[in-house]
Every structure is written in C-alpha cells, then in structure tokens.
C-alpha cells in the first residue's frame, strides 16, 4: 500500500538511504512490488502504432496466392529475409529480433482485425476510435472522450494514480478519463539537487494540491535515480519501453505509449523498416526490463486501421481497413495466429481495395483485460467497450 511509502518515516528512510548513497540493491524498485495493492501481479502494455501500420507487410500473408500480385514491389517474402512463422505468414525482416519470442510462444497476432470505424479512413478519427473504443462506424462524436483503458482502470479494485502510466510526452487518449493515471516522460527530470528538493517540498507544502503532486513526483524521480534509471537523452522506442518496464516493475500494472512513422504512402519498403525496428526494440526492451515479470505480461500492439491491399503508384500503400494486431509477453497462451483470414482475391477485399476485417480488435483487447485483470465480461461489454459482444474466448492468454 502506498500509504506506507508516503508516511514520513518511510520517506525519511528512503531519503536517508539515498543520502548514504545506498545502492539500488538496498532500496530496489522491486521492493515496491510488495506494496502493490489489489490490481494483482499481472501487467498489460498497450502500444499504439500511429499512422496505420501495413499489416500485410508486418505479418506478411505470403502463403496467400494473391499476395505477390497485389504487391509487385512490396511483397514481404521468406526468400527476401522474412521469417516464416507457420507456412502461411511471415514476419517482416525488420521484426526479426522478435523471432525468438515466437519460438518461445511469447508472440502472437490476429490478422484481418479492425475497429468498427469505417470508410473515411482518417488518421484523426481512426485513432480516436481506436483509443476511445467507440463502436460507431464514423468514429466517436461528442465532447466527452475517454479512453477504454482508462475505463478499464476505473473497474480495477484498488487502482491508484500509479497503477496506470502513460509513458512519453505525447497525448494518450487511451488512458485519459476519470480514473487517475500517471503521465511520465523518459527524459523527464526534476533536475534539482537534493538540498533544492527539500526547499521544493517546503515551497509546495503551502498548497495541498501541489504538495501531494510534488511528493509523488519526487518519489518517482528518486526511485528512478535509485534504480539506476538513466534519463533518456533521446526519447525513442527503447527509452519509452525501458521506462514502462521500470514503472511496471514497481507499482504500475498498466503502461501505454505510442510509436509513430507507419504512414507509408510512398517508398514503403524503405519507410517501414525503421518504425518496425523501433517496435521490435520496444518489445525487446520491455522483455529485458521486466525480467521475471515478463512471464505475467501481455503486450498489445494496435493501429488505427490497415492499408490498401494493392500497392499504389508510388510504391507505397494508402489508408485501408483490416489490419494486424500483435501480441507479446510471457502471459500469452502460445505462438498463435488468431483471427480468420479472409483471403486476398479481388472479391474477398473490402470495397475491392482493403483487407476485409473479419473481427473486431476490441474483442482481443477485452479478452486481454479479462485475462490479465479478471474484469467481468458484463462490465467489459457495458463500460469498457459499450455495446461490444465479446463472443467466444480467443484464448489469447494462458
């Protein structure tokens, strides 16, 4: 429980430890785990891939007889370095660092999934739909917008301000809402010397709101210092994931961040490489940073929509519909291809252009929440994703 940590004696102890130059071993972040309250020990990481990831490149359906014809220059094939997964699908070469996870049963995917958002194919509305969990075909409307992960948080018994953390400086609608959630950036640093931090506490003590926020901020900052956490000079995927892993190793159970660069309208073969590498780096940094907790972790990687099945006139792809959702973590039930593959024949495509969505990605998110935190199905279908029918359990988690 956090009150132990907020009590003067505990804080004084922590401070004394720091003053004595205690190593991370004396006050390791891991010790916080024992204080963690009701949300339990399972972890969930949500990674939003902004810009619309081309699912047909990330997890290439090279076994589909129509794939090569649709992608004359962009087909991702095992003979060009893609990693065969199951004889039908292959991982993009830039995701090769994730191949060992697949072999260990810690990587899975669901192909041909989408949100209910349809046809306008706007990043702006598509991301809002993805993050709010809206069931509307034209995206969420109305002024009050909160994220589905925040609504899930509101259902978790014992959730506190640090149970969920949005990592990075970018806005994370997914975690916005009435339930308190922390926001922290990998390059964030209070910067002050230890004496100045004491002055800061005095200055903030005059105002309860500032005092409370300051106490928490100073505590997090000190823990990151004590844990040997370097402040990132550059906020890249690895830095975001490393901080997420650090927070999840302490009191947090949910972390969310976003990666960008997936809007590959032209020269996709080159343009998609770096963003995919970043995704692989992020997942690998999560695995390393979480250590033994990786076994209790589920990572959901999702994007606002897929891209056109045909490559376009500039060797890229345009905004589409059905896409891919990637899962990672030791909590998965195994290396599996979820979802129902619709095929890529002309008549199988959505509106003759996009991968046909055969499943609602919110179902996977809902079942992941059910598996990780035991949230009741009726609450998931009513509060987290209003109107969603979760259907049969895809058995995402072990």
């Amino acid at each position: 429980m956090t009150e132990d940590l907020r009590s003067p004696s505990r804080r004084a102890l922590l401070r004394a430890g720091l003053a004595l130059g205690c190593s991370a071993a004396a006050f390791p972040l891991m010790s916080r785990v024992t204080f963690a309250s009701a949300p339990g020990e399972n972890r969930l990481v949500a990674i939003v891939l902004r810009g619309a990831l081309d699912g047909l490149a990330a997890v290439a359906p090279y076994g589909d007889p129509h794939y090569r014809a649709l992608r004359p220059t962009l087909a991702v094939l095992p003979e060009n370095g893609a990693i065969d997964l199951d004889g039908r699908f292959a991982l993009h070469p830039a995701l090769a660092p994730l191949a060992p996870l697949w072999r260990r049963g810690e990587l899975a995917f669901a192909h041909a999934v989408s949100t209910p958002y349809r046809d306008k194919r706007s990043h702006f509305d598509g991301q809002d739909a993805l993050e709010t969990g809206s069931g509307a075909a034209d995206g969420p409307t109305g002024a009050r917008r909160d994220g589905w992960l925040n609504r899930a948080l509101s259902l978790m018994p014992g959730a506190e301000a640090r149970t969920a953390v949005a990592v990075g400086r970018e806005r994370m609608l997914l975690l916005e809402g009435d339930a308190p959630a922390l926001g922290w950036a990998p390059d964030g640093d209070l910067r002050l010397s230890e004496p100045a931090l004491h002055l800061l506490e005095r200055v903030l003590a005059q105002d309860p709101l500032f005092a409370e926020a300051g106490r928490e901020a100073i505590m997090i900052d000190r823990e990151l210092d004590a844990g040997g956490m370097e402040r990132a000079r550059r906020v890249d995927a690895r830095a975001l994931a490393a901080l997420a892993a650090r927070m999840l190793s302490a009191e947090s159970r949910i972390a969310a961040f976003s990666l960008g660069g997936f809007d590959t309208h032209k020269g996709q073969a080159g343009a998609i490489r770096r963003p995919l590498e970043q995704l692989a780096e992020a997942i690998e940094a999560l695995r390393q940073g979480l250590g033994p907790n990786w076994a209790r972790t589920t990572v959901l990687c999702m994007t606002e929509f897929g891209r056109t099945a045909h490559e376009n006139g500039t060797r890229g792809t345009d905004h589409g519909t059905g896409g891919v959702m990637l899962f990672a973590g030791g909590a998965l039930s195994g290396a599996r291809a979820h979802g129902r593959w619709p095929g890529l024949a002309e008549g199988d495509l959505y509106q003759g252009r996009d991968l046909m969505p055969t499943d609602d990605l919110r179902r996977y998110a809902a079942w992941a929440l059910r598996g990780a935190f035991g949230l009741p199905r009726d609450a998931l279908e009513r509060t987290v994703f209003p109107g969603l029918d979760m259907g049969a359990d895809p058995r995402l988690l072990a």
Partner: protein
Amino acid sequence: MAVSRQTLAELRFGCGFRPDRPAPAGPEDLLRQIAAPPRGALVDEAEARRRYAIQDGFVALRRRAKQGDADAARRFEQTLAEGRRMTRDDALARLARAATTPDGFVERLHRFWCGHFAVARRNPRHGAFILPMQELAIRPHLTGRFADMLIAATKSPAMLFYLDQSVSAGPNSRMARRNPRRGLNENLAREILELHTLGVHGPYDQRDVRDFARLLAGWSHDAGGFRFRENMAEPGEKTVLGRRWRGMGPEGAEEALRMLADHPATARRLAFKMARHFVSDAPPAPLVDAMARAYAGATGGDLGAMTRAMIAHELAWTDRARLGPAAKVKKPWDLVVSTLRAAGAQEADLAPGGPFGPPLTIRALEGMGQPIDSVPGPDGWKEEADAWITPGGLAARLDWAGRIGRVIAARTDPRDFARVALRDALGRETAFAVSAAGERWEAVALLLVSPDFNRR
C-alpha cells in the same frame, strides 16, 4: 497573505508583470483595456484567403504528384514545408504578442474565447486556418455581441472542417439524391448546442440537433473562405427549439445561431464559463448571476457588459488564499507567457536559436500537456486545477523550470526576478526558498513551480 488589488488585477486577469512596464493600475486599467476594440490582429483578410487557397492547390498537387508529375511532387513537398513553418511561426507570433503586450487582459479574453471555440489542427493545411479564425472571427468581437462572434466562428473554415460540417449534405439535398453515400453529419450542430451555446443540460433534444444539422447543411468552405453550397442544403421544414424554418438559404442557420446566442441558457453558460476561467474553479453563484444578467441586458448577448460585470463584482477579487483549492492554476501557456514577461523577453528572444527559443516554449508546452493548436477535443482545455497539477504535470513544469531557469539566472538575479514576477504576492516561504537555493537557476526554478507563481 492578502494580495493588493493592483497585483491581483495582473495575476488573475492579465498575462503577468514585466520589468519594463509600470506598476499596474488595478481594475480601472482592465476596464481601460477593453474600452476600445482590440488591436494587433496577426493576420488580415488577404492573408486568410491566401491560406485558404493553399488547401485547394494542395489537393490538386497531391493528385498530380501521385500520378508521377515530378514538378508537382517538388511543389507538393514545398507546400508541406511551408505548412510546417507556418505552424511554428503562428505559434511564435501568438506567444510573442502575449509576452510583450501592454494589454494583458485583452490577450486573456482572446484566449478564453478561442478556447470556447476550441479547434485542433487535423493536418498542417487545416492548422493554417486556425489563426485566421482566431484573429478575424473571434478577436474583433471580444467585447461585442456574442451572436456576431458565434456566427463568424461557425463560418470559419477552421471550424467547418474540424467538426465535419463541410462534408455534411442534407439527406434530401441534390448532392445526396445523386450520391447516396453523402449524407448529414450532425457533429457541428451538436457541438454548437452542447458546447458553444446552451450547454449539455440545455433545453434541447436529439430532434433539435438533427434539425439544426439540416439547417446548417450547405455551410462549407473553399479557396475564398466560407461558401454556402446550395446543392448540399436540405429542403423542407426544420424546427429548432420550437421555431420553424422553411427555406433553403444560408440565412436560416444564421437566424438560429442568433436565437441560440440570445437564449437565457446560453447567458448562464457563458457567464459560468468565464467566471470559472478567470476567478475560481467553483465560481460563486452571485458572480455568475450578475454576469449572466449583464449579458442578457438591454441589447442581449453583450460580451462587453458581461466582462465589465465580472471586473466590477466584489467576488471576482476574492483573495487566492480564501479561494483555497478552488483558486485558479495557470495552464502551461499562461505559465510560459508569464515567465517570459517576468524575464523581460522580447519578440526576437523567442525566435529559433534565441535564448527563449522553441524548445523552451512550443516544445515545452507539448511536454507540459498543452501543445499549441492541439486541444484534445472541442470542449477545450480542462479548467480544474487538479487536471494540471498531477505528479507528471508538476514534474514536467519542474523539468521546464530547470531549463528556462538557467537562461533567466544568466540574465538576472533570482531575487529580483521573484519580485518582478510576483510583487506583493511573493510569499515568505517562496522568498526564502529563492534566497536559500544553492544555485541561481534552482532559485528561479523553485519560484516558477511555486504555488505563489502558479496560482492566480
């Protein structure tokens, strides 16, 4: 500690003290500032039309570039680059004006009304429409009639595009009859009722939303700015709040907007919002009532009267200490602006490469959760103090304060800076911390995150 009214006038209603400006004269000075229409618009009509025209050219260029036209591709890239430059320049121009103006209250009012008609950049071209809306549709009406501001804001391409009005076709319009995929979009109609006028608890229902959307169908924009497209307009009868319209012309929606502006629910809502923005997160009812009465007044919808009623009301001057947790907290924009002012920053200092360049302003605002022209939704930035002073939010303020603190400490003594920034609102604990800090930049940083400097 009671703060003098002269100081409170600047802290609460202004943009903050500058070392090179005389001591504020108090409430009378606020009234002087709003006695004449605001000056200093950053764009004119010609510039607005130039920007609207870029959008049309952009779509054509993109199409030709995709077809492999190399010259079009090059000009397309130039247009994108110009868009990015414009985004930055627009941000800097507004920051510089707020940081240097002698009339801080006017800037605060302008920003309040821009927040009331909140618009976020959906793409760089759309981003270029935002400044014309703020400068030409909102700023001229700060102390005028709300109906005029409402109509001008609603007709702005920035708003029409942001809330999808420009694609809304009446279900029986010529366009929708030809192309069954075109239809009504209720987004703008709903937000006008819910956010811009009556409020979510106002006396309207879904039928009003739908008919108001039918009335608005045809309101669109092109290279010339607002454009009424008759082929998208909806024939037939429409009823909004019990009043009926029959014709298809653009005047129907304009009349409906005037009716909404004059509605008592709008008066209460605007008075409440303004009092909450300037005075307290929980504005006292007598203050709100007085402001709503002034708004309704003899002529109806008078923003100048409502504003003067606020300044004239005793409850608008309740001391910060007495307001307690309901006292306002500066949003990041106001924190940055008031810091630049206290540091005596000039416009040139804000330019890229300058001492107070974009990393300490534009990017810092992103870090502190208030990126310029990227409001989360049409309901604007959150007003409540506890939405901003969170552990992460305070840490981001401190991070920035440490960085800008080094620049300020290199130019001025932190104790002088503290006195300029807060005058008699500088409390004992804060003054002590400033004088006791081991490093000069730390002294500045402590001041910048102190409740004394962040509450108003």
